[in-house]
């Protein structure tokens, strides 16, 4: 099988084929309801509880093995009410994560993110603040490394195969309800203002990385299968797609890798008691810009994400921007 996959064209075709159902999902998940009014309190877990969203990535650009610390800052504005002239609340979320990716065998890895959430929401007359452990995830990855095809006429001086630079990783894991979910908070605008979703969710991810001598491309597609929590509240399934292109500038003591990227997130409607709550789906497209610096065994990264186009929950929630910085120790 692996030999077959070495054929690059086959790889791309199968990748596209595998992603196709997801794309379909993305298109149908957010088709507009027949509701003519677009006034409703939005609910999603993108904002607060699930900052381990695919658009942030599960690892550094080169997907090396590491353990590290990451800080993510997110900024949102939500309507505090169902009307056009309802007041706005500003949300700022601080997430502190311990994250890492460790090898188990040559092809099998495990990554995990353990977040701590510190969330603020400012209304016109008061400030709400919740903090605590968030939902952690554990994902097992299987990596396929691709090697250059040997030409018949070529003379090979080594026994080892040369990696072509392409890599595919398939990840299957779960997000655990280690963060608290408060049902009262769902009564407000943006019930994403939670420490956790209270549910055990499935995470399925597909990552493709190409690292050449200078340029690299890192693409991840992730599908979240959400389950209902103890309040029979089920966040909608989510599909995220992110792709970053980086360029290496090797220096004597370190390598600088600036990158740019795009990402898209698609959210299905939320259900409670098995019924779809109207106007709780959403989608957003963002751009990202940042850089990693690798020196010794450390990688420092910074990533600034800005929205390009979004329609979150009847346009009642607006993502303003996100910033993340991380420090990893390569294993």
């Amino acid at each position, binding site marked *: 099988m692996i030999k077959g996959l070495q054929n690059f064209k086959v790889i791309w075709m199968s990748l596209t084929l595998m992603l196709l159902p997801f794309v379909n999902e993305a298109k149908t998940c957010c088709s507009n309801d027949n509701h003519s*009014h677009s*006034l*409703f*309190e939005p609910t999603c877990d993108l904002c607060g509880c699930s900052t381990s969203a695919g658009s942030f990535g599960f690892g550094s650009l080169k997907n090396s093995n590491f353990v590290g610390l990451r800080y993510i800052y997110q900024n949102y504005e939500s309507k505090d*009410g*169902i*009307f*056009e*002239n*309802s007041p706005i609340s500003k949300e700022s979320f601080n997430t502190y994560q311990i994250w890492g990716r460790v090898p188990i065998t040559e092809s099998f890895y495990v990554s995990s993110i353990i977040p701590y959430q510190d969330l603020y929401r400012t209304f016109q007359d008061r400030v709400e603040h919740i903090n605590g452990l968030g939902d952690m995830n554990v994902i*097992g990855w299987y990596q396929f490394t691709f090697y250059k095809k040997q030409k018949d006429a070529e003379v090979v001086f080594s026994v080892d195969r040369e990696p072509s630079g392409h890599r595919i990783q398939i990840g*299957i*894991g*779960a997000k655990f309800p280690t963060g608290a979910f408060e049902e009262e908070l769902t*009564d407000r605008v943006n019930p994403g203002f939670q420490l956790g979703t209270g*549910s*055990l*969710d*499935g995470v*399925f991810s597909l990552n493709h990385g190409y690292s050449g001598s200078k340029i690299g491309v890192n693409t991840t597609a992730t599908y979240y*299968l959400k*389950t*209902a929590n103890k309040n*029979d509240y*089920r966040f909608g399934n989510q599909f995220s797609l992110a792709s970053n292109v980086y360029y290496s500038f090797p220096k004597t003591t370190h390598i600088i890798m600036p990158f740019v990227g795009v990402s898209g997130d698609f959210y299905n409607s939320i259900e*409670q*008691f*098995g*019924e*779809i*709550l*109207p106007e709780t789906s959403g989608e957003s497209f963002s751009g990202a810009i940042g850089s990693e610096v690798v020196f010794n065994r450390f990688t420092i990264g910074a990533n600034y994400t800005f929205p390009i186009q979004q329609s979150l929950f009847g346009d009642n929630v607006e993502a303003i921007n996100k910033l993340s910085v991380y420090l990893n120790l390569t294993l």
Partner: protein
Amino acid sequence: MLAISILSCSSDDNEEVITGSGSITVEFDNAYLDSDLLLNTSSYNASGTEKIKISKVKYIVSNIKLEDEDGHVYVVPKNESYFIVDESNEDSQMIELSDVPAANYTKITYGLGVDQAKYLEGADGQGDFLTKAQEAGMMWSWQAGYKFFVFEGLYTSDDTTTETAFAYHMGSHGTALDNYKEISMTLANTARVRTDMTPIVHIVADLSNTLMGDTEFKLDDAPQIHVDAVKSPQIATNVSGMFMVHHVHN
């Protein structure tokens, strides 16, 4: 394997036995088009070049009925089923019904105003409502009857440049005119009443429908409409069409 086990974890068994009774809140949220209705200060666009500032919005909600997913209908006892929703009184906008049988409700029906049957009961069963209506200014003195809908304010237009008062009072008139209307709406997701769960049915009333509903009204034509054989029923139809269930919160 992990995925499969996760999936199987999430499957629910819907064999809940529903007993007892609880409470449900019906919230009437007054709006003007997409905006929250703000009395006196905000200026809203009405028909043609008319702009209005609203100083009073009051209406009578009555005979509330709830239908559950099996088709059973719970009727709020008639003597407890008359309410005055007043924009200037926040408490009046949340109607709390108690001793409601626990069930999953999918439809709500209520009347706007007072039905003829109630009048013909005389004082029997008017209970406190007559007094409440008097206090709220929802009774016509010259006619022993209730005002179902009160809509007052000031308006200007290209033809009327100084602020002029307008007032629409709509009700039934004796036996001649029955302007009581019944409104029925399906809930997008069920309202689950249990002994320990009190859902809120959040209804939005778009007051712009009064002047710009099935019949368009220009205040320049008649800023005061109290009794009108033709216009009062049209106002009743406009107003009964201004409601929608915005959402249900369980």
